[in-house]
């Protein structure tokens, strides 16, 4: 796996370029965020991804479910209460983690970012994971990273999702 190759030896510039746009997530966390979308169907779910930035890749250590404050049209909009975000940031800091991304679902809609997603995305270098939920069942999950130096230049680009089996994580810890 590319990510492990990177860890095992000093990165060359080429390797850095290869891992620049990647989300690394444990299988149980990946399944948890997809399940969240099924549970809130036909409404959108949303949550935060906590972890660390590793040479441009975002490595998820925890997922945190959030409430959707867009009760006026929860079927196609989501918003996380900033006060809840503040609590999550503090929770992350206590564990020496950072917010590395967010996730939400698109009920009966493709797992592709919308113009609304881009307009409302402000966490540069963070991942935005979108799961399409079709008739209540999670289908495609895609991840996009918000790149650019400022609001004026921001863009969402597709990134690879590297899903780790638990055994792989355990072996890394030893």
């Amino acid at each position: 796996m590319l990510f492990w190759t990177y860890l095992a030896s000093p990165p060359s510039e080429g390797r850095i370029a290869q891992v620049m746009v990647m989300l690394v997530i444990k299988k149980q966390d990946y399944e948890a965020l997809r399940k969240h979308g099924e549970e809130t169907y036909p409404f959108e779910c949303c949550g935060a991804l906590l972890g660390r930035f590793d040479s441009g890749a975002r490595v998820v250590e925890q997922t945190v479910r959030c409430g959707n404050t867009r009760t006026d049209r929860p079927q196609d909009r989501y918003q996380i209460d900033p006060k809840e975000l503040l609590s999550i940031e503090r929770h992350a800091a206590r564990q020496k983690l950072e917010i590395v991304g967010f996730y939400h679902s698109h009920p009966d809609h493709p797992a592709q970012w919308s113009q609304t997603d881009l307009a409302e995305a402000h966490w540069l270098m963070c991942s935005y994971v979108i799961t399409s939920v079709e008739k209540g069942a999670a289908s495609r999950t895609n991840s996009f990273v918000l790149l650019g130096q400022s609001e004026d230049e921001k863009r969402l680009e597709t990134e690879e999702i590297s899903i780790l089996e638990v055994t792989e994580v355990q072996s890394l810890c030893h």
Partner: protein
Amino acid sequence: MSLNISIPSPLRSYTGGEDVIEVSGKTVGLALESLVEKFPPLRKQLYTEDGHLRSFLNVYLNEEDIRYLQKAETAVVAGDTISIVPSIAGGGAAKTLRWSSVQR
């Protein structure tokens, strides 16, 4: 008087990776000004060209959103913490996309 400003992860590249910066100032606005004086490239990230705090940034003084206090004029005391929290929102309705044209 000194107080801390908590920096969100997307802005830490402008503060040398630091998540908390000690600043000075008698109001929230002056404390933020102290922050951008320390890290000038942050100004463009926090403020519009006409000097207004960007609308998607939520600023908290301890536990309170400054929009519900006196905004930038809100007085601070030593030991307070100011937190900058970019908003997070979005949603589907990409009506230009067709199910048949995208990978599911």
